[in-house]
């Protein structure tokens, strides 16, 4: 028997199912909470911290926090939006993101949240790290310059593809995605049909030879800002 839970997000009452995370309940109600590492169908991860909300006054990640009856959630407050801007900027300066040359432009979730938050240039200094590209695989490219360490490929490969092609190696600012071989993706059992490739929110994991099938200008976030897909389908009541 599933009882319905009632909670409030920014003063609006919404219904949720027990066991749901705050972000899932918000999605279903048509309330967009910014996110990058969260992807429906994958185990909650909680690394990007973009979804940080206040639940009963305490900060927490909406993608990992379960709903509780009577919970009062604050989402679009000025200070939270400011924190989120900082986080997005940090992800930009930490890697090497050249949107103008990137084939993911327009379909990139990092670029899209930046636009949604009105970020044109980061106020933090660029780190210009040296990062590698692994083009060893005939059909797949890994560009570490653009990786935001969201772990979506890791979880998808492990839990949906049943392969464990990817996992994290290194610690701190040296942390990166590793592959299940000495060093090259070509030496793993990664395959062009892996769902993991569709999990990447940015242009770090790409299918070769597919770059410009959809012209710039007609891509997902060229048309509507990220989040509008949630805001338009949900039923706030």
């Amino acid at each position, binding site marked *: 028997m599933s009882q319905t839970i009632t909670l409030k997000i920014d003063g609006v009452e919404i219904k949720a199912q027990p066991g749901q995370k705050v972000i899932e309940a918000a999605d279903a109600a048509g309330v967009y909470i910014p996110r990058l590492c969260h992807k429906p169908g994958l185990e909650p991860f909680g690394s990007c911290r973009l979804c940080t909300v206040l639940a009963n006054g305490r900060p927490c990640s909406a993608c990992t926090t379960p709903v509780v009856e009577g919970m009062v959630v604050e989402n679009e407050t000025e200070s939270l939006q400011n924190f989120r801007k900082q986080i997005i900027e940090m992800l930009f300066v930490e890697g090497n993101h050249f949107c103008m040359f990137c084939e993911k432009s327009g379909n990139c979730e990092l670029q899209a949240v930046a636009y949604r938050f009105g970020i044109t240039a980061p106020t933090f200094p660029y780190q210009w790290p040296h990062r590698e590209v692994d083009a060893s695989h005939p059909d797949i490219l890994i560009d570490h310059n653009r990786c935001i360490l969201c772990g979506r490929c890791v979880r998808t490969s492990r839990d949906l593809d049943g392969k464990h092609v990817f996992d994290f190696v290194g610690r701190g*600012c040296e942390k990166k995605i590793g592959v299940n071989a000495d060093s090259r993706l070509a030496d793993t059992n990664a395959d062009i049909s892996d769902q993991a490739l569709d999990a990447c929110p940015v242009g770090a994991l790409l299918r070769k030879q597919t770059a410009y099938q959809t012209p710039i200008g007609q891509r997902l976030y060229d048309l509507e800002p990220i989040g509008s897909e949630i805001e338009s389908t949900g039923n706030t009541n």
Partner: protein
Amino acid sequence: MTKPSEAVARQACQDVNLDPTRLLDVLHIVQKECRCVDDSAIDAIAAEMGIPRVRVDGAVTFYTFFTKEPVGQITIRLSSDIIDRLQGAQEVADALTDELGIDFGQITADGLFSLHWTSCIGMSDQAPAALVGDTMVTHLTAETARLMVRSLREHKHPPKLVQELGDGKNAHPLVHTMVKNNIRQPGSIIFGPINRGEAIRKALGMTPVEVIRAMKTSRLRGRGGAGFPAGLKWEFTRAATGDRKYIICNADEGEPGTFKDRVLLTELPDRIFAGMTIAGYAIGAQEGIVYLRGEYAYLKPYLEEVLAQRRVEGWLGQDIAGKQGYHFDIRIQLGAGAYICGEETSLISSLEGTRGDPKNRPPFPAQHGYLGYPTVVNNCETLCCVTKILENGAATFSEFGTEQSSGTKLLSISGDCTAPGIYEVEFGVSLQKVLEMAGATQVQAVQVGGPSGQLIGPDQFDRVLCFDDLATGGSIMIFDQSRKILDIVHAFMEFFVEESCGYCTPCRVGNVLLKEGLQRVLDGRGEPADLEQFEQVGAMMKACSRCGLGQTSWRPVVTSLQSFRDQYESRVADDPDGFRRSFDLKKAVATAEKITGRKSVHA
């Protein structure tokens, strides 16, 4: 000649019965025998244990003490902690690089030595100190560092460096170290009289619920830093459903400037183990695990011996102290050089044989801890208090201290004072009093609670040590007027950059940005706007970081900015022409000038 790493790795996997949760033990063996965990070892471990190789790779590259490239037969790890630095670690470092002919991070041509900086090794009261193999070498000078290298060249056996033994159990044959306890002020609780066995006998004469009630009556709060009420934590864990439960002793002591657990493990391990046994009885656990920081490996053989003796005496094992049906035993897991593993959920990840990443909460360890079972994690000192509370009664314990902070607290005092070491004080004592006890004069600043605590100046020395004022896990670092505040803060930020696990954005990137921003200020390229940005980044890290590390690691910058604002403001300025002072045009065009072979007209 070293054995092929593959064979060593396979054997090590067999030794732990192919149990992937024992991966750390396997990696320790391989690292020790092969001086690295190379790709063929990683392949062998993955194949033998039937786990993905990238998972093994991920663990190897997470822990400082495991390396994919070979280290020397003898590793010299010099403590990079600020106290060690202020007491001459740099001169020691220069002597070592000169004597060995290598830089830090390098290995000598004959493979005998490698040289490394390492985060605080828990010897701030006898700094500068280094970890040579598993041997602690304290009170180093440039001169003794050179002599050390020379004698190592001859005998190649770090334990032989120990000539004068430390006091107390430091001189025990199984410890055999030059480390000193420096117990300056023993109090009547932790260091009070010992009535061996009494606490367990009393506990087993009560029901588990009564034992938990005693903890609540004593108002004991955790001594590891967070100060969570012990009785409540036990109650949650007891109430949680699970086929098995665990009690874990957090002996990962990694907060720079903290060394009191080292002394407890040396002098009072029986009290810690008794506390675990009592906790196990109260929550319904049959297994306890001590997570011992890798730097304290020199204590492991001795602690194993103490455990063995307790089994012989019936304090561990089946039907403890004659109580039918209460079985309990303890094992020790050695860490591998990762400060984050002191955070309880990281500690659990590490115990499970993976990278020491913190876990999402909820669920909390009390519901879903080690291997998914309800788990209590308690600090060494908390467990000593438990034993004492059972021995003397909850009321006696709570007579000490304040309403919100009962009992006594061990302080690890280091830095500019005449008597660095361990002090057992009653909660509620003023910082001023503590400074007097330690013989500190001309004090400019005190870092209370380690880098993640706060840096305060003399105007606040009348504040008191307790959970609702100056909370501390025990670290008190004293800096006199000759010290440069911003250098201290910079060293703390270096520590956090080094030790962040890298899982979440705010901490992974935020610490780097704060450190670099501070460097700009130190270099005279800072702007007033930078100071504002430090505060904003700090507020974001506090709210958005995933665990306690990032939630507090901004504090060295922001608390020093509050207490010593003039030191920052005197170094920052706006550019008269409205340019960004942080932008270095010369540096920016240097590569282009080199490539074109022409000088820029503007730079």
